[in-house]
């Protein structure tokens, strides 16, 4: 583990409140999305991020508004943390024309170029080269932007992962590789896929720094990401962050994958006790923020989510005559 354990006392209260707000927004939005999935209102393959919120919140807080982010099939958190519009995401999940991808992408293809989210892809490790490429563009243009790419522990098993670390390190590209190690790729646990639990060490052979951190500690995530982003922006090249965390829900959909002999309830409960939001909340209360202030944030979030669902429900579907729009740029 990284030696410098995150300490909330080092952070301005405003920053920690911001992190709390983002995590709570992701959590509550996804709990509502889970309900919409169960009700059949959302039909596209939807992978929930609940439990991992600290990673998206911490990394994106360390980025500038014009920095670039790529994600995966499990990217609601990345999208919201980077500042993606909640209405646009909710409408996208319902397949509406007002969605962030105009109903052409769904949960796995969130996009918000206005805040630097150039896309997400369920092809495992598929967006790593894209982030290497946007970082390459930044190096060529000298625009000072940093690119960050989120991926799971399964992506490390793809050959292109190593190609990307190698090339990014060789060219000292301003990119941050964020591995969210939640110990499962779909149904299969890490120990059935990798002989050693050492993802952060894969950085070493490609000569870039690799940090293993507690992905449920938002302050530690933020601190580590800040260091990586500063390094990238200073022209010192890429960093690998292995954030160890856990998704509470199953691989896809609203269920918990407890009925399929994949994982135990005891395991899920042990991770729920390490809830990153509860930890941030306790930290804030300990530093003098009032319960009332936190409740006020929670109320605002509930209101925002309710309005986004109404917006999505009342939005039109894409017109059937527009099937072939956007195949090619005219």
């Amino acid at each position, binding site marked *: 583990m990284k030696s410098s354990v995150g300490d909330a006392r080092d952070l301005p209260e405003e920053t920690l409140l911001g992190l709390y707000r983002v995590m709570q927004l992701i959590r509550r939005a996804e709990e509502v999305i889970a309900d919409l999935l169960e009700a059949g209102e959302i039909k596209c393959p939807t992978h929930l991020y609940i439990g991992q919120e600290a990673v998206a919140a911490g990394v994106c807080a360390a980025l500038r508004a014009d920095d670039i982010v790529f994600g995966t099939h499990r990217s609601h958190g990345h999208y919201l943390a980077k500042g993606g519009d909640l209405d646009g995401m909710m409408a996208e999940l319902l397949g509406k024309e007002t969605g962030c991808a105009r109903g052409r992408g769904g949960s796995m293809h969130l996009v918000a170029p206005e805040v630097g989210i150039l896309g997400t892809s369920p092809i495992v490790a*598929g967006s790593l080269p894209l982030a290497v490429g946007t970082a390459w*563009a930044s190096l*060529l243009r000298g625009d000072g932007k940093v690119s960050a790419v989120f991926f799971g522990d399964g992506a490390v098993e793809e050959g292109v992962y190593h190609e990307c670390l*190698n090339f990014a390190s060789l060219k000292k590209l301003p990119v941050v590789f964020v591995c969210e190690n939640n110990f499962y790729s779909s149904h299969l646990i890490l120990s059935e896929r990798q002989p050693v639990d050492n993802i952060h060490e894969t950085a070493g052979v490609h000569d870039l720094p690799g940090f293993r951190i507690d992905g449920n500690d938002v302050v530690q995530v933020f601190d580590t990401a800040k260091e990586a982003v500063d390094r990238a922006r200073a022209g010192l090249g890429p960093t690998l962050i292995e954030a160890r965390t856990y998704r509470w829900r199953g691989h896809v959909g609203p269920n918990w994958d407890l009925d399929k002999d994949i994982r135990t309830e005891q395991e899920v409960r042990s991770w729920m006790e390490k809830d990153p939001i509860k930890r941030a909340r306790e930290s804030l209360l300990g530093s003098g923020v009032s319960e009332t202030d936190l409740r006020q944030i929670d109320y605002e979030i509930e209101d925002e989510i309710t309005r986004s669902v109404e917006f999505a429900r009342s939005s039109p579907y894409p017109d059937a005559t527009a099937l072939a729009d956007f195949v090619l740029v005219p």
Partner: protein
Amino acid sequence: MSRQLSYGLAINEAMHQLMERDESVFLTGQGVISPWYVGNTTQGLFDRFGPQRIVDTPVSELCITGAAVGAALAGMRPVVIHPRMDFMLLAVDQVVNQAANWHYMSGGRTKVPVTVRGIVNRGGEQAAQHSQSFHALYAHVPGLKVVMPATPHDAKGLLISAVLDDNPVVYIDDRWLYEETADVPEDFYEVELGKARVAREGKDVTIVATSWLSAQALIAAQGLADEGIEAEVIDLRTLKPLDSQAILESVAKTGRLVVADGGWRTCGYAAEVIAGVATEAHDSLRAAPVRVTLPDVPAPMSKTLEAVFYRRAEHIADGVRAVLGLGRAGSREETDGFAAPGTEVSYAMREAVK
């Protein structure tokens, strides 16, 4: 006064002119500074534009191609070269899953102006993994444009158009054409994507051809003229989007169609051209079309096998005679008869013992 330039140097000139005009253009891929990987098509670029914009790479086709796609998403206009199309298959995810789909699945909010250049390099006993042309595979995929220049003029103009286009374009050039020399304007000019070229006019039969076989079709047409057959030759230039109009207009005039393509027969590009004519203009056809393609066999090694594997002008001429009902008995089958199991072998054997 007109200026002559080889196909290889026409590609080279297009790159020089693109890079001097547009800071967002850069060139990458394995062997871009190699003395042998890409012929003379990149000569002088490194000395002129430097290591930032002319980037030879690690042996990582998938990462490098994806990085070019990513750079394009960020507003650059990268050209990524695969010196052999065989190796380009290692990058298919980034071309097909990512580049081709990104604009669509983002609801038009992003675009990918990348040019992926694949070089077909075959013959000389290079065998199955140093010889392949996968243009039909890429042409199958929505969201990609696919071009195959057959002349020095188009090698330059299509590369310029490909790089300036806002979509991902697969540009496929052919080492067998590199020494072909013809008039090439010194200006910076585009050849419109999606427009075929009538390379020779004729009234008796339409030959639709791609890339090197377009040049071979012209040789065939010249020979056929001596027999009193006037063949019209259409060089497609762009495979996707296909210029159906040019084909249909020609077939409406001639009523007969031969398609010559350097890919395999099954699910190949020739099949697509014929299907288009059969469904759109069946009444125009006065005879069943003929396709001149590679047999459904991996590229061989020994010269005796290579001699019967690749299609040339003589096969196109045979195809024309067959579609006109003038061929020797069995010539249609020999040109177009590779579907039946076993016929590849018997055909190769017959040819080899000649």
